[in-house]
């Protein structure tokens, strides 16, 4: 166990006991990744920031259920993904159950500020059909497996695989026409 892991574990322990400054340490360490997840999923800065706030409040409320079996970020990320999917459901964009390309918001990758090589990829991801984008982000960016994506979203594993295949094909075409 490295020093950083130990420090994080101690912060989690303190935050679980109600120590707000310790929780701020966890927030500072992970906010960019959680916000990046929200922004790529929702495609809107204001909504992504609002949801990021919700995710950390939820994490604070649920810290007592974190048992330390996994890394803290893994647990926090799961809280985040559930909140993102819940937000999409609440917007009423979930009814088509991954069959319609219009059931999730269409982000604009131009909203991502970094003028780096990653912008092309961000833009291409933003241009993906919504469900393909969701599956690609969960699988290739965040490291989830199809079975986990199926559990989180309610889609069949085969649907997840098909959408990943579609997303990768479209991205390769967009990045290397």
């Amino acid at each position, binding site marked *: 166990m490295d020093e950083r892991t130990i420090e994080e574990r101690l912060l989690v322990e303190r935050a679980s006991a109600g*120590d707000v400054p310790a929780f701020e340490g966890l927030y500072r360490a992970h906010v960019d990744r959680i916000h990046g997840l929200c922004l790529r999923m929702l495609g809107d800065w204001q909504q992504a920031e609002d949801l*990021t706030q919700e995710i950390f409040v939820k994490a604070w409320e649920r810290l007592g259920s974190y048992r330390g079996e996994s890394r803290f970020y893994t647990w926090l990320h799961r809280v985040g993904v559930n909140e993102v999917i819940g937000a999409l459901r609440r917007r009423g964009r979930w009814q088509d159950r991954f069959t319609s390309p219009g059931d999730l918001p269409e982000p604009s990758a131009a909203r991502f500020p970094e003028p780096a090589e990653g912008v092309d990829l961000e833009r291409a991801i933003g241009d993906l059909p919504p469900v393909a984008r969701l599956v690609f982000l969960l699988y290739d960016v965040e490291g989830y497996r199809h079975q986990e994506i199926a559990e989180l979203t309610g889609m069949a594993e085969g649907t997840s695989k098909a959408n990943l295949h579609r997303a990768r094909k479209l991205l390769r075409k967009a990045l290397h026409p």
Partner: protein
Amino acid sequence: MTCRETLDRLDDLVDGRLAAAERQAVRSHLAGCLACSRELAALRRLQGRAAELPGVAPRRDLWPAIRNRIEPSAEPAEEGGAGTNARFAPARRWWPLAAAAALAVAVLLARPASRSAPDSRATIRTEADATPRTLLLETLEARRGELPAESVRAFESDLEILDHAIREIEGALEISPESRRLRLLLAERRQQEAELLKLLARA
């Protein structure tokens, strides 16, 4: 295997989901097909770039708003008070005990350094979660020969004080396991162990 059949299997190939025979067939095709090999290379580049996408900082600091929402629930629960967070509600009942434990810890931390030998506490805490302490002892042993004897004694003394404090708190927690105050005290002592470890590493 045709190009079409190969391209349809590239995802499963990179994701490790092909059976051995099928994997071999795809690889055989790739070995002789430049176009399909390029597709495979592009797919792997895409995967690499996706996995390295960085986090994105919010445009504003979200912490003040988060703190405002969680801080009321972080205060010790008032008996019968409105807005009490159920997670912390039991803490109030154990407050006298927690206060006693806090006082004990303060006394322990303030007392002069003792000269106990390290062996006397070698079996004090053997929990699997005592990693900072274990690392401390290992580091201390590893560096014993190179550090001044006075520094070694000082580290041993500090560690002994922390051990005593932690034992006191753990004992109190056995009686009142829901006590938020005790859990916080325990977390603080473990934080001090980690800080001691850092000091030792830099000594």
